[in-house]
């Protein structure tokens, strides 16, 4: 019989200690469990110690102030998407969280879990990179901070050691005239995995000229990709059709998707360009609405 131990510490210190003391068997932390528990059921030889993070208050809250957003990574998406204040400042991040699974799944699933599971198709990762989010990581040797684009290192892989925990997600306050957007493509309306995704943040000046942009594509490479060439296509333009078309082409060119049952290489390359263009238009419209 396989025995799985379950711990629910009240503090991050305790959680880190549980992990670093656990040297004789595989251990994993648990947030909403919507990835982990599914994996447990389909895997042989999974973790034998599970450390639940949901009893740790600082993992579960979100603070929005003049410095930006500090997000407790285990807050469930339903709670995050209900936060009007956050949605106003980072509409793209919130819409990415709102795409995960369904109402039921969002009652459990967290942004931190989405990030740490590090799937190439994770919806919040391109949205987080687009808004220049960083990961504050805690471990036995203290804390360190890593940009999200450097956090995810491969398919299902990230830069954390097995005794490290993602403590906060830190997002700077966007510059004036900035808005973000995230779009993904699935063949249905929900409960599906992105065939391609695009997170975009644009900054426009008073004349509607784009002064800065971050464009990130998802599900079309082993990790979400920041595409500077696509951003450059927009900067200096008034977001006209040619600029948008060039940004789309740059996104398609940067992608290196695989052929699988969810989409062909050709199809994904095309669609990621379409999404990039559409997300850029939405982000620009959001700036104008502000």
């Amino acid at each position, binding site marked *: *019989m*396989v025995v799985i131990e379950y711990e629910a510490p009240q503090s991050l210190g305790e959680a880190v200690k549980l992990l670093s003391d656990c040297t004789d068997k595989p251990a994993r932390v648990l947030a909403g469990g919507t990835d982990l528990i599914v994996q447990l059921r389909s895997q042989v030889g999974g973790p034998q110690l599970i450390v639940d993070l949901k009893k740790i208050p600082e993992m579960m809250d979100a603070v929005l102030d003049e410095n930006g957003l500090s997000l407790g990574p285990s807050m469930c998406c339903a709670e995050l998407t209900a936060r009007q204040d956050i949605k106003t400042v980072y509409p793209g991040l919130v819409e990415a969280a709102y795409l995960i699974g369904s109402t039921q799944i969002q009652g459990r699933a967290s942004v931190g879990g989405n990030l740490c599971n590090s799937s190439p198709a994770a919806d919040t990762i391109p949205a987080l990179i687009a808004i220049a989010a960083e990961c504050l990581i805690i471990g036995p040797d203290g804390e360190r901070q890593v940009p999200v684009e450097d956090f995810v290192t491969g398919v299902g892989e990230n830069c954390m050691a097995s005794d490290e925990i993602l403590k906060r997600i830190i997002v700077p306050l966007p510059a004036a005239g900035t808005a973000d957007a995230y779009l993904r*493509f699935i*063949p*249905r*309306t*929900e*409960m*599906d*995995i992105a*065939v391609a995704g695009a997170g975009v943040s644009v900054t426009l000046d008073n004349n509607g000229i784009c002064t800065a942009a971050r464009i990130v594509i998802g599900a079309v490479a082993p990790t979400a990709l920041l595409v500077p060439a696509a951003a450059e296509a927009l900067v200096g333009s008034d977001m006209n059709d040619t600029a948008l078309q060039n940004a789309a082409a740059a996104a398609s060119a940067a992608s290196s998707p695989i052929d*699988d*049952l*969810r*989409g*062909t290489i050709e*199809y994904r390359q*095309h*669609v990621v360009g*379409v999404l990039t263009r559409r997300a850029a238009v939405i982000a620009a419209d959001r700036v104008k609405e502000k």
Partner: protein
Amino acid sequence: MSEVKDYKYIGQRTIRPDGFDKVTGRANFGADLTLPGMLWARVKRSPYAHARIIDIDTSKAEALAGVMAVATAADFPAIASETLQMGETSADIRDLARNNLALEKVLYHGHAVAAVAAVSQTIADQAVELIEVEYAELTPVMDVLEAIKDDAPILHDDLFTAGLAETPETPSNIAMRMELKKGDIDAGFAEADVIVEREYQTPTVHQGYIEPHACTVRYDEDGQSMIWCCTQGHFDVRASTAKILNMELSKIKVIASEIGGGFGGKTTIYLEPVALVLSKKSGRPVKLVMNREEVFRASGPGSATRSWIKVGARKDGTITAMQGILHYEAGAFKGSPMAPGVMCVFTPYDVANVHIEGFDVVVNKPKVAAYRAPGAPQAEFAAESAINELADKLDMDPIELRLKNAAKEGTQAIYGPKFKAIGLVECLEAAKNSAHYKSPLGKNQGRSIAAGFWFNAGMSSSVVINMNPDGTVVVVEGSPDIGGSRASMAMMAAEELGIAVEKIKPIIADTDGVGLNSTTGGSRTTFATGMAIIEAAQDVVKQMKERAAAVWNVTLDQVDWVDGVAVNTADEARLSAAEICAAAGSTGGPISARASLTARGAGPSFAVHVADVEVDPDTGKVDVIRYTAIQDAGKAIHPGYVEGQYQGGAAQGIGWALNEEYIYDENGVLENAGYLDYRIPLASDLPMIETVIVEVPNPFHPYGVRGVGESSIIPPLAAVSSAVSNAIGVRMSELPCSPPRVLKAIQSRDN
């Protein structure tokens, strides 16, 4: 002929008797029975799509602590080939045994080769890993066109094409050829001004039931056994298990649990004989449950097809000739629903010259099972698409073209009967007059329609009605309820008895508790089992009138039955059902009646659907934006559940048209064995499906009932794909119309 009557209960929207149990979670499904001392089983499955079994070594599994029994095909008695009717389709019992546990060869990835029963599921799971099977791999054949090539690897050395003029001497993957013809096909095309001709393709699809196959069985010391399982037909489970294990029917009791969907997929068996062998060997009850992946890999899907259709018409829209060649994948063993496909394909039309050829072809996929109107959606997709293309070429409205050629009362159907009253014209008129059909379309939108025909089945039903001493009623039937039929049974009993529907309790008895019942399939239950209920209820009424006549000492013709009360026509004396039943012990004994019948005259149900779609020109994604399902119910017993059948069939057909398909890799391994990547439509994917119930009474049924469960899945395939064609200006002849395929069509148009 049924007359127009005023009904008291028929046509109401009563509460379903199984509702509370289901919404509270109290209802017991296939995997819910646990018995003292019970073992847990797991099946060992083939890693190859096509291979010869050299050796199976179970010794290590048997040696594992906690393992109580291991079974292989060697535990089944040798049986000869014999055809057994199962639901709407039939099975060769020898093939069925080999599908339950492979003998000599494995014929698809996931084919069962052995099974283990152990004291826990974990141990059973570990034990199957310890079973060592030596295989000699063979090349898999994954597509009909590959399978029918002269040099194709042969699945069965003893399979010779049936239906040919001369008996062939070499084995073939073509199990059967069938042909139907009428008139002179060449002369028919010579008369035509316009001809359309095209190839069509449909994928392997899943019925989409949510509950996996499951059973708990017990083989007793005295040779009696019990099977609890989720099935559409427990009498067929009994018959097939008995044949495979060479047992007497009286030794097997099958109890049908509540069922979480079947749609034809639960009209055959995979687990029951295997579990019984394990139970017999271990002396303990055994539970055997498939997981979702096993359901996809190893239970019967709907058949993939390739069809060629040619239709010719005169300028005025008169169709002069219809020709088709239909290839159906049977999966690992012969027996695709090719024959019904051949019989249905052009049946909505009254055409002088028709020629249809059909082929039943084995491939290295799981043996197909029935799926709602088995065989019809695939064939009629091709035919209805061709009719829509013809309408375009003739510059005629597709409804007008169909009206001009529609089958009606008196039309000689190619598969045999001359139609009595049927409702195709009425359905087409309803579509033409609908607000939907007249509404405008926007940019990137397209609309189309399609018709559908399905025979419907009658088959055998047995029921008993028992009157309780307080005048309440138990209706004992043997038709597993997959669509709310218990409500309809109670309503029909209520109507005849004049007793309130709330006082009537319908139950589904096990195979020992009621006479033989054919499987719930072929849209037969409300029609045929309902007929038995009407007959038994009339008998009960007669008995109650007799008791009243005896009490009053009058002749039977002086007693009327009014709203559940016997009335003496001479003096207005009254005796209620409750009073009669309370006194029954002293007036001749308890009151009950039975009826057993084979129902004739199942009226065909025609359907016409109207679909509007919007296509995203940049991604190829299709949204169904408005949808109307129109169908002839004959007489809707419970209109709510009739509408539910229309909507459910439409939803399944829309999924088939847009996203559903089994995707196999080059080794014959299914890549999307689960609902994440096998995309059935979600509630949020569909608009509210509008319904119109047309009622052209079936002259063979006392209330005019026709089966309504199946026809609704037929039209969506062509209605939706033709609507996509109209939106993008390219003919979509291959399903599903998934985003990459639609985008490719758009790009090919633009280049």
